[in-house]
């Protein structure tokens, strides 16, 4: 894997840059424009367009089916699996949310995920700033130590984590889970943020120091606001895997009042496997925050997905 810090800023670049090279530009003459158009014509023409949209439907229909099924009654679902969700029924949601304890699971997931994201983003921002600016050799060494964590399959360390938690009373604790996720997010966050801090001109800090700002003031008042886009990318991108993680809560939580959504969902599915409508509602409840997040932060998620791609 190329862990070359090509910079997360470049992640979006290909998409933004290619259109610009495509059009001949307003000043170019007709023949040149003609050639430019022929060069950038989409491959495959209309047929390919249809195929691409059909594939988009294939990606989306199962999710839409999940949504529509959750608004139907169970009897209706069994008699006609492909029917329309009309009239809308909210019974399944009521059942899942209260009787199925999804309200509790939802709150737990939110607490653990937000706690972990805030924690790892905060400590990683501070560390990244020092790693980007520190001149001593020890910072180079520390940076590679952190980056080695990008490749570590942390789930394989579940046994030592379990006994570590057991020793300090963090088993069956949401705090323990948040600390663990916070720690596991440090390498990715540092990876992205150091690249960003390095792109900022050093004159900014020199000016701040001349004006009498302390290191902390320079960091918090000047540097952090400048890397805000990267902070958003890191936070949003870390949110998804933590929200979805299954193994750690499965092993580390006991009391079902502390379950996060994936584990609560598993319990609910095991006990209500034939109450299809309620299960569909549970699936939607588990997924909805991520879809909402995706709609407001597509850019950050896409940037996170392509982070570290060396061009």
């Amino acid at each position, binding site marked *: *894997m*190329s862990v070359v810090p090509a910079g997360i800023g470049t992640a979006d670049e*290909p*998409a933004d840059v*290619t259109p610009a090279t*495509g059009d001949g530009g307003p000043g170019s003459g007709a023949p040149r424009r003609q050639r430019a158009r022929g*060069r950038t014509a*989409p491959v495959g023409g209309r047929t390919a367009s249809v195929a*691409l*949209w059909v594939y988009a439907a294939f*990606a989306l229909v*199962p999710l839409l*089916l999940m949504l529509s099924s959750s608004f139907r009654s169970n009897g209706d679902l*069994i008699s006609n*699996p*492909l029917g329309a969700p009309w009239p809308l029924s909210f019974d399944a949601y009521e059942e899942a949310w209260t009787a199925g304890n999804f309200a509790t699971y939802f709150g737990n997931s939110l607490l653990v995920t937000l706690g972990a994201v805030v*924690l790892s983003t905060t400590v*990683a921002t*501070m*560390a990244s700033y*020092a790693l980007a*600016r*520190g001149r*001593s050799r020890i910072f180079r060494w*520390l940076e590679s130590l952190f980056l080695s964590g990008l*490749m*570590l*399959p942390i*789930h*394989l*360390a579940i*046994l030592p*984590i379990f006994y*570590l938690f057991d020793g300090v009373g963090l088993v069956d604790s949401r705090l323990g889970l948040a*600390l663990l996720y*916070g*720690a*596991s997010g*440090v390498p990715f966050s*540092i990876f992205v943020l150091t690249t960003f801090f390095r792109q900022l001109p050093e004159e900014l800090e020199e000016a701040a120091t001349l004006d009498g700002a302390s*290191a902390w003031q320079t960091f918090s008042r000047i540097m952090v606001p400048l890397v805000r886009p990267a902070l958003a990318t890191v936070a949003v991108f870390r949110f998804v895997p933590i929200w*979805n993680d*299954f*193994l750690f809560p499965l092993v580390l939580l006991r009391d079902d009042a502390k379950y996060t959504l*994936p584990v609560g*969902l598993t319990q609910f*599915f095991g006990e209500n496997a034939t109450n*299809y409508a309620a299960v569909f509602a549970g*699936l939607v409840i588990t*997924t909805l925050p*991520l*879809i909402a997040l*995706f709609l407001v932060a*597509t850019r950050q*998620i*896409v940037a996170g*997905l*392509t982070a570290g*791609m060396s*061009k």
Partner: protein
Amino acid sequence: MNRRTGLLFVTPALALFGVFVLYPMVTAFSYAFYDWQGTARGGFAGLENFTALFTRAPFTTDLPRALLHNVLFFVGTMLVQNTIGLTVAFLLHRRVRTRRALQTLYAMPYLVSPIVIGYLWTLLLSPTFGPVNTLLTKVGLESWALPWLGDPDTALWVVILVSVWQWIGFPVLLYGAALGGVPEELSEAARVDGASHAQTFRRVTFPLLVPAIGTVSVLTFIFAMEAFALPYAFGGSTGNPAGSTDFISLLFYRTAFDSGATDAIGTSSALATLLFVLIFGGAYAATAVLRRHERRITA
């Protein structure tokens, strides 16, 4: 920034990372080399825990089977990803107006928890009420309306295909970004020299995509070796039906937390170590090969 201030800034991250990631990771290996009675650690056991994995039931049957499934998972995902994924990325390239929207739609299933995806497809493929079989029957394909997940011969392929369905947006994005990085002048020059579209792709574009394909392959390898949540949702911790969806991570989970064996910690840690070596070794070797290729094309 001087050294002392810098170290102060790094300390919180280092403490968190050290305690909850590095320390468990390092001790995970040491566990595998000790004798365990329940949670009590005995003396140094050398490679005893490792030999148990190859000589003792249930490992002698479960481990090779699970490993085979991981490998099939990897190979299957690779085949689909690098044919359909690359084709889709190639077709999307230059569709200036619709590319963003389509890429976004393709990436949607990636967001959804593997657990949700597993239960969703379990319901969709249910033989009693499943919409998929209802649809197949409606369009006259009754013979295709099978209990896909209940049959040990097809269950694994369902798991693999569903996983590919969920993840395909990722290679499409990466390949899209890589295609965007291929200088237009190169393929244009080839076209001017009289190369056909197919030739241009094979001789010019494709070699420049190899680094991206390599990156996707390495990530897919790690992902396939670690598969846990999706197969768990489909077949529980035992890989139902009849162990046909068993994977190494599931075997590890069963050994560590469900087996009740007195030396469970030792053997499961040995299994985790083995898996780690496999993942790291595979990824490292692939990256080395890749770097050599990269040097050749940039030279």
